[in-house]
């Protein structure tokens, strides 16, 4: 068995008296996508900073590409590429000059610049200053710069935050291409859809703890199944509906009623018939199959209380 690309065990980090990471454990097998999912302030960026040798951990061990991040930072740096939370491109330089700067520092030959511009669809804008680029183009340039050193492990810290849906999909396609080339990806994100789309394994981080870990399917299985959600205009109607539909759970604040069911037409019809029978009108009806949003809310709400 080969050694995992990244292992963290008992990782702890404290800033002054604030505990940011409180004993984190995970393994990332080589060639897979691992997603660290969590709300703002959960400790995602701190984790990335520790894994990429930028910040020293207070406790625990972290090995990246077979090297200890504290003692063998140089060897770790030679194997990784990092795209931080904000596109770290030099705005006064053109796209081409930004890539050339990376080639000058990391090696790789001048041909690589043209290849990367082509691959990321930036050839047309190559001679314009990066300050004129759209958010999506900056992100692409940022990632292209990260790839100059041909890293085997790539860290992406919220790579699509603030991007429009089209640019987000482009980023996803690029990530999939990298995985196809055998690159290991460590991805942080606030978007469950992103983790669901890309990740082989997901860890949910909240307040410095990993509150759940598994494949996207495993996580989805952790919460109750399909249900119908009914929304009412008044609390009286909600109450009436809750009384006539056994097993349902009302949410007084949202004026919604959650009714377990399989979402098939038969059970839906009997539900509607029953409402009709008692002359109760719902404002809106929707059928929900559990997605990672449900998992995420269920898991992080619990920890927040």
């Amino acid at each position, binding site marked *: 068995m080969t050694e995992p690309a990244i292992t963290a065990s008992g990782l702890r980090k404290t800033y002054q008296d604030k505990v940011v990471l409180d004993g984190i454990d995970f393994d990332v097998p080589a060639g897979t996508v691992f997603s660290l999912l969590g709300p703002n302030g959960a400790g995602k960026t701190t984790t990335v*900073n520790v894994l990429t040798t930028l*910040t020293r951990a207070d406790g625990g061990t972290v090995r990246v590409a077979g090297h200890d991040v504290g003692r063998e930072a140089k060897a770790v740096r030679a194997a990784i590429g990092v795209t931080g939370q904000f596109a770290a491109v030099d705005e006064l330089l053109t796209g081409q000059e930004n890539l050339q700067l990376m080639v000058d520092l990391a090696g790789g030959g001048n041909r690589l610049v043209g290849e990367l511009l082509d691959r990321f669809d930036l050839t047309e804008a190559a001679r314009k200053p990066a300050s004129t680029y759209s958010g999506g183009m900056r992100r692409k340039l940022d990632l292209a*710069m990260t790839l100059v050193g041909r890293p085997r492990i790539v860290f992406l810290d919220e790579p699509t935050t603030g991007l429009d849906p089209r640019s987000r999909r482009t980023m996803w396609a690029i990530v999939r291409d990298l995985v196809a080339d055998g690159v290991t990806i460590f991805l942080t994100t606030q978007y469950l859809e992103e983790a669901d789309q890309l990740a082989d394994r997901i860890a949910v981080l909240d307040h410095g703890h990993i509150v759940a870990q598994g494949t996207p399917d495993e996580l989805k299985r952790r919460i109750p199944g399909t249900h119908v959600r009914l929304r009412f205009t008044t609390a009286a109607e909600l109450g009436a509906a809750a009384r006539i539909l056994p097993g349902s759970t009302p949410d007084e604040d949202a004026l919604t009623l959650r009714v377990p069911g399989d979402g098939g037409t038969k059970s839906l019809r009997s539900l509607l018939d029953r409402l009709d029978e008692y002359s109760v009108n719902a404002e809106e009806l929707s059928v929900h199959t559990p997605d990672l949003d449900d998992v995420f809310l269920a898991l992080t709400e619990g920890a927040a209380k």
Partner: protein
Amino acid sequence: MNSHSIVMLRRNFKHIARNPTSVFNAVLMPIVVMLMFVYMFGDAFNVGVDYVDYATPGLMLLAVCYGLGATATAVNSDMTKGIINRFKVMDVSRGAVLTGHVIASVLTNLVAIAALLGVAFLLGFRPAAGFLGWLGAFGVVVLLGVATGWLTVALGLAAKSPETAGLASVPLVMLPFFSSAIVPAEKMGPGLRQFAEYQPFTPIIETLRGLLAGSPATGDVLAALAWSLGIAVVGYVWASSTFKKRA
């Protein structure tokens, strides 16, 4: 210098060339200030010598300070935009990243001073200094540029945003006005006068003045060297530790 330092320095030069505001502040502002004081107020000040001869050494120091704002902003924007983190992960040394900024800052200073001296000569600046005097003045200016450059790099690294970094360098731009740069300290009111006499820029200006007039005073020269080295060491140590710690 290793190859990384050269790459970094080239990047800093491109920045200066593409950022006209920084060039304006560093090169044109000192000239504007010189024209203002020498033309408008020059006759009103009685300093014992031709006013342009008196003011030019002080304005040389001012020219160094005016360049610092751009350095602080540039360093900070590298820090806050994650560019320094990118370099760190690429194993580019602290020396290469920060020294590039300091050298670019000093060279901007020298360009600004050359332009300022050009205008000064047009206005009738006639220093008595010989070759050694000029060489000494050059040395003082470079030392001052390196010292304040490191301090400014530290300010830029530590500041939360490019705006606060620019603000943090304002005291360095204001300090020359409260020194013997424009008028002799002994002509100032009580309080301000003592401040002007004991602040670091006054002995540095007096050293420049002495060197260019052909008669430097040993006390001033020693004080100027001590202050410059002190500022350089504080700036270097502060910049290095911030670079290492801040991610």
